[in-house]
């Protein structure tokens, strides 16, 4: 219990710190959002109108500490303000249009990548020096070290554009209405394969190697030798003794990755025109849309913190050593 309370205190502090950094960091960037938007109208607007636009967007020239206090109170009220680049849509609704797709794409890719990666890691460690172990890790490192956007573009060009096996863009067919029909679900699945596949291919290597290395360490431990001496079945030793313990560091990494899913898969979403948060974030940064940037970073921060908190709680369950301390 004391452990949990300590963790909670730590998370509260981390949350406040990140909200604060979240507020000040974007404002240290050069330029201001009104000028960026103004620039779009080259020659159509008179300079007098910059002030008018600031009025409209509620960009106050109040001192930073006053703005900071206002910002804190609106965050506590769940009000993230109005987006500037998608003015006058509230930040919450801009995020709402994309968050589902980002979760679907990032979440499914992460789950598949994590599960498959760990299973492959377990087998490749168990049969050290076997065929799988000799081929798989180097191959995955090789594929994983390609620039991600290049890999995604190549996949799009050949599998989508040249051969026409997969759709080129979007989360579902433009000809369909959203709804729980087989046709719609099928279309969503079909549009998911290429972007999710690209993420899996690149990220799976990390899981395989992480698992393989901790697993090999585990296999050298005394309790494994003991289990073998007891004459337990190979499968039981592999999964219940070695893998269960080797999984712990990977669970932590999984929690981190889960949090980052909400940040949107920036490159993949842009390449495949997938309507997720990644592109929203780039756009927010490039157009100095402070409220949207803050909203997105806040969400990512809380997702990472939240996921870690859950993992910490899980640890109490998974790792008896934590309970003992």
């Amino acid at each position, binding site marked *: 219990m004391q452990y949990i309370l300590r963790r909670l205190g730590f998370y509260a502090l981390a949350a406040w710190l990140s909200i604060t950094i979240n507020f000040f960091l974007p404002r240290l960037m*050069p*330029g201001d959002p009104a*000028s*960026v*938007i103004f*620039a*779009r*109208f*080259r*020659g*159509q*607007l*008179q*300079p007098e*109108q910059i002030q*008018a*636009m600031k*009025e*409209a967007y509620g960009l106050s020239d109040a001192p930073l500490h006053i703005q900071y206090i206002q910002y804190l109170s609106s965050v506590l009220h769940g009000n993230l303000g109005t987006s500037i*680049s*998608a*003015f*006058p*849509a509230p930040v919450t609704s*801009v995020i709402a*249009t*994309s968050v589902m797709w980002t979760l679907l794409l990032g979440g499914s890719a992460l789950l598949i990548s994590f599960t498959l990666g760990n299973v492959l890691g377990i087998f490749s460690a168990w049969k050290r020096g076997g065929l799988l172990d000799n081929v798989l890790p180097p191959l995955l490192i090789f594929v994983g070290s390609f620039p991600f*956007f290049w890999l995604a*573009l190549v996949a*799009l060009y050949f599998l989508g*554009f040249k051969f026409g096996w997969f*759709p*080129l*863009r*979007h989360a*579902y*067919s*433009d*000809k*369909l*209405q*959203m709804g729980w029909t087989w046709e719609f679900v*099928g*279309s969503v699945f*079909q549009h998911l394969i290429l972007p999710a596949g690209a993420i899996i291919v690149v990220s799976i290597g990390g899981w395989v190697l992480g698992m393989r290395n901790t697993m090999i360490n585990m296999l050298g431990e005394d309790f494994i030798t003991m289990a073998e001496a007891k004459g337990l079945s190979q499968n039981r030793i592999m999964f219940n003794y070695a893998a269960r313990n080797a999984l712990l560091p990977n669970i932590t990494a999984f929690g981190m990755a889960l949090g980052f899913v909400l940040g949107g898969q*920036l*490159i993949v*979403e*842009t390449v495949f*025109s*997938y*309507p*997720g948060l990644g*592109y*929203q974030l*780039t*756009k927010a940064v*490039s*157009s*100095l849309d402070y409220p949207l940037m803050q909203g997105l970073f806040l969400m990512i921060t809380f997702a990472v913190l939240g996921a870690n908190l859950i993992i910490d709680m899980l640890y109490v369950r998974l790792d008896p050593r934590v309970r003992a301390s």
Partner: protein
Amino acid sequence: MMTVAACGGTPPAAQQPTAAPAAQPTAAPAAAEATAAPAAAEATTAPATGGSGSATLLTVSAQQQATWTRNFNPFATDNRFPTINGIYEPSMVYNTVKGELTPWLATKYEWSSDNKKLTVTYRDNVKWSDGQAFTAKDVAFTFNLQKANKGLTGSGQNAWVYLDTVTAPSDTTAEFSFKEVYTVGLYDIVGQNIVAEHVWKDVKDPVTFTNETPVGTGPFTEVQNFQNQIYEVHKNPNYWQSGKPMIDGMRFPAYPGNDQANLATINGENDWAGNFLPDIEKTYVAKSPDNGYYFPPVGATVMLYLNTTKKPFDDVNVRKAISMAINRDQVVKVAMYGYTKPADVTGLSDAYPKYKSQAVVDAGTWTKLDIAKANELLDAAGLAKGGDGMRTLSDGTPLVYDINVVSGWSDWVSACNIIAQNLKAVGINASVKSYDYSAWYDRVQKGEFDISIGWSNGGATPLNYYRGQMSKTTVKAVGESSDQNWHRFGLDEADKLLGDFAATSDEAEQVKIAEQLEQLFSDNAPAIPLFPGPAWYEFNTSRFTGWPSKDNPFAQGSPFGSGTPEQLLVMTSVQPK
């Protein structure tokens, strides 16, 4: 008024070439869809067609976003295409290719003898898309709405700088009274899109109003099937031009960037697009006889700005020498794929055939490549060459400069690379420095740069352009933000001529004054014109015809982000094949 269709304000992730910070374009149907389902939407009357089927909807790539937010407010800075000049309409359409005004909602305008009152006459057969009659009262209402709400953008908002009152003495006439004489204001006034009084008078806050189901006078007003990755706008059942538009509607798929939009365009999915395509003859035209493009060089001229508050850029001969060192033919051919042409000493693009004086153009030599003359001028200016062939100021400071450019605007970056090489050839050590868009814009605005590439002002007359190039009224101190005249150069004589230009409504007189302005620019070289910005526009004739083209240049065809008035000419002339 008008802008260059180009791409800008884009994430480096989505390589976005080109010249202008304008939220930009996009669109296309997924042709490679394996799902061949008709749109079973209750809302849609016509089946939405993508790359196949009965071609009733035009597929357009105009704006670039990953997901659409529903906003059809014509006064907002971010609204969905074609809100401005598509759903809503201006009084008159300024045609940049022809350099003339086409009557639209209005049939004619007239100045009073003292040029302080403009009377505009409107048609009596125009209806709003909800069936109510359009009158000049709507015009007066629109302008007064902007006066009351400073956050409503549009050229009508600019007009309140010099307007005194706007009234509608009858259903077909609107009167604009001026505080001071400013005849160029005509273009701001006739370019403002008009909204319906019976709808907008009840809007609580017009600044934040998203106007999800717009009521307009334009050819396309009925928003249908609005989703985050695609939406449709169907034709106005009560459109005032009988028999038009000849197509049922338009559809707008969402693309986050140029690459995605271009992929769809090359794939034959877009009927109408406004994107920069590299090497278009090979990548697009060669693919199909149906594919065409038309890039008239009518966009505002792209300039090389020298900070005239710093030595030696305060010396006109140094500025001219730098200009003569630049190989514009190479810049246009390599960096711009031959899509435009070298600029001349007036700096005006091809949008001003009426005003551009051939005499001034012919007499000016400083925009032509002449290395020998450039060296001679630099020597004479006291910038002696050292032993390494590099020049120094008279106090021995070496001439080492950054040329600032926006990272990711690939055509500009490669133009700057060529220019840097050209300058090294005459002993000026220039290198390209690319900044993120916001950082670049912050620097030029504050005058904190040595050399920077940048855009210039457009508009229906050369007035905006020259005001931004050499009016004292636009010069701000270094460190103070300015949205024009970044090079900080002003002449009293220019201000006098600009004042005279705006004080007369006699066109012959304006042409004469424009010639003097051009001569003044040519004499002083306030900044260095490189090339007119092309207006990006691609079309596909496999499903629709009637597009403007090189052979039939009735307008520039760019479906640009915030909408040029000329797109109305395109929308009302395109027809199914």
